[in-house]
């Protein structure tokens, strides 16, 4: 395998160290923190997906959780005793990604003619509708009793069920998401999205099919949520409608904004802060939310563009 050797040789040393660090990390921190790193990781995948919608294409989507739920329930229904169907995890991953994308396109078609605040409100509504539907569609989703004993991923006879094993699987998911997002960003499609975000009408007049690219952004963003949802359902082993509350949408949006809209390192840092910090602050339990809120306020005052703004935003602020 010459290619692998080549990749290894061409990777800068900093990246090699980073990869090595990520590989040994779960053994250094143990099971409890590996579990939390896994939570963070799922949010990173969701963040990268929502960033395509909000950061690249500039569509404020407050109902992102709907697509997360589609991925999770899609997996749970087809890989649990609920209907006795047990499709393997690896086969379900692309299926759940397609569920997310398809549902994104389905939802986006009527909704994307709206702009800005209106879009935000309509998507917010759809997020809520999804949770309420899951709660009430008893014969399919078991309502508030949730779906239980969801299949974990298997490689041969080996079942992935410990936090450390999950950590590696989620890490692979993140790398895949980053890969896709980077390729999209640096392309004809990415440029069309950003042009659209900058000035929708001008973009249309310059020859960009705005409706098509909006739909594409919405749908691709949703497909990441589908992936995250499948991983989430399989990892939890059981899911309930309450897992998909408005707070998930808000958290994902927050972590993008805190990290720096449009930047992938920003999303990673944002997830660590937003999902990891509340865990780290468990020691001061009753002041946790207070500290957390204060931190957000301070950050927005001193770093309004987020911790690691995208390269483009950085240049903007320099000049």
């Amino acid at each position, binding site marked *: 395998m010459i290619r692998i050797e080549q990749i290894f040789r061409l990777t800068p040393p900093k990246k090699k160290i980073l990869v090595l660090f990520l590989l040994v990390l779960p053994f250094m921190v143990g099971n409890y923190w590996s579990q939390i790193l896994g939570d963070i990781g799922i949010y990173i995948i969701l963040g990268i997906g929502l960033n395509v919608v909000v950061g690249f294409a500039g569509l404020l989507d407050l109902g992102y959780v709907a697509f997360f739920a589609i991925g999770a329930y899609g997996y749970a229904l087809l890989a649990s005793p609920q209907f006795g169907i047990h499709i393997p995890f690896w086969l379900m991953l692309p299926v759940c990604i397609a569920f997310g994308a398809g549902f994104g396109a389905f939802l986006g078609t009527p909704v994307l003619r709206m702009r800005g605040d209106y879009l935000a409100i309509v998507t917010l509504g759809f997020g809520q509708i999804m949770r309420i539907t899951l709660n009430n569609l008893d014969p399919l989703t078991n309502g508030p009793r949730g779906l239980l004993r969801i299949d974990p991923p298997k490689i041969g006879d080996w079942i992935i069920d410990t936090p450390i094993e999950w950590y590696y699987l989620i890490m692979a998911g993140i790398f895949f998401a980053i890969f896709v997002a980077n390729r999209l960003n640096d392309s*004809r499609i990415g440029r069309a999205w950003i042009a659209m975000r900058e000035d929708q009408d001008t973009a249309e007049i*310059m020859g960009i099919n705005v409706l098509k690219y909006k739909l594409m952004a919405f749908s691709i963003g949703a497909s990441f949520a589908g992936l995250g949802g499948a991983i989430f359902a399989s990892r939890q082993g059981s899911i309930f409608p309450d897992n998909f509350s408005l707070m998930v949408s808000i958290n994902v949006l927050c972590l993008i904004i805190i990290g720096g809209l449009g930047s992938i390192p920003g999303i990673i840092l944002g997830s660590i802060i937003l999902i990891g910090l509340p865990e780290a602050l468990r020691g001061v339990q009753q002041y946790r939310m207070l500290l957390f809120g204060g931190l957000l306020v301070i950050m927005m005052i001193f770093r309004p563009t987020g911790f690691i703004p995208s390269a483009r935003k950085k240049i903007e602020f320099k000049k």
Partner: protein
Amino acid sequence: METILKTINITKTFGGLIALNQVNFEIKRGMIVGIIGPNGAGKTTFFNCLTGVYTPDSGEILFNGTNINRLKSHQIARLGISRTFQNIRLFNNMTVLENILAGHHCRMRAGLWGVLTRNKRTLREEKDSYAKARDFLNFVDLKGKGDRIAKTLSYGDQRRLEIARALAAEPQLLLLDEPTAGMNPSETGKLTQFVKRIREELGLSILLIEHDMRVIMEISDKVTVLDYGARISEGTPLQVQKDPKVIEAYLGCQEIIINKSNYPANIHSNTDLKSASLK
């Protein structure tokens, strides 16, 4: 010479306001045509109809013989009409080169699959597009500024970048909406030469809205005058300037200019004079 664009009786109203009233217009391939008229005469509305921003209430717009009335803006751009704006409308937070590439979007084909797999065709297309974008960058004299963020450019540079972006769409017909607005005489002179160069080197037909009569006189093959949405005059720049209807539209009545020693170089400033005297 063949006709590249023709409008037949196009009318556009906004509520009770008739912005365009039965406008007939024609431009032949390779021509530079100026559109003048007092403020609010419907010049920009005319451009907006041609580029699909508005759909005319009635009448027909024929581009190379096909009706484009109901086409969407992006489809019209792809057919070959590109434009600039009266108030500069760049993609402010993109780099200069990215702005031009965004203009070139409608000539590229890469889809989702090509972008994700980065196959040979996509890579070649990207490379070609970058090369073309650099050519346009040099053509408008912005060499070396490709990596700047668009909004950090000077006013004149931004105007030229807007033209480069429009050119990158590889149009047959270029619409320039007041390209010299806010420029001093020397900048205006340079831009006039530049517009000529666009026709000569790229062979485009150009339609421009302009208030500066010196520019119109120098480069237009034909001038069309709009007032209250209607075409009131058409002809060579000299013919139009002598047309009593045009003088009336701008100055209200003919007597005022009879004892004027020099003919207005800039009709626009005279409209201001008129409104001032009315007060």
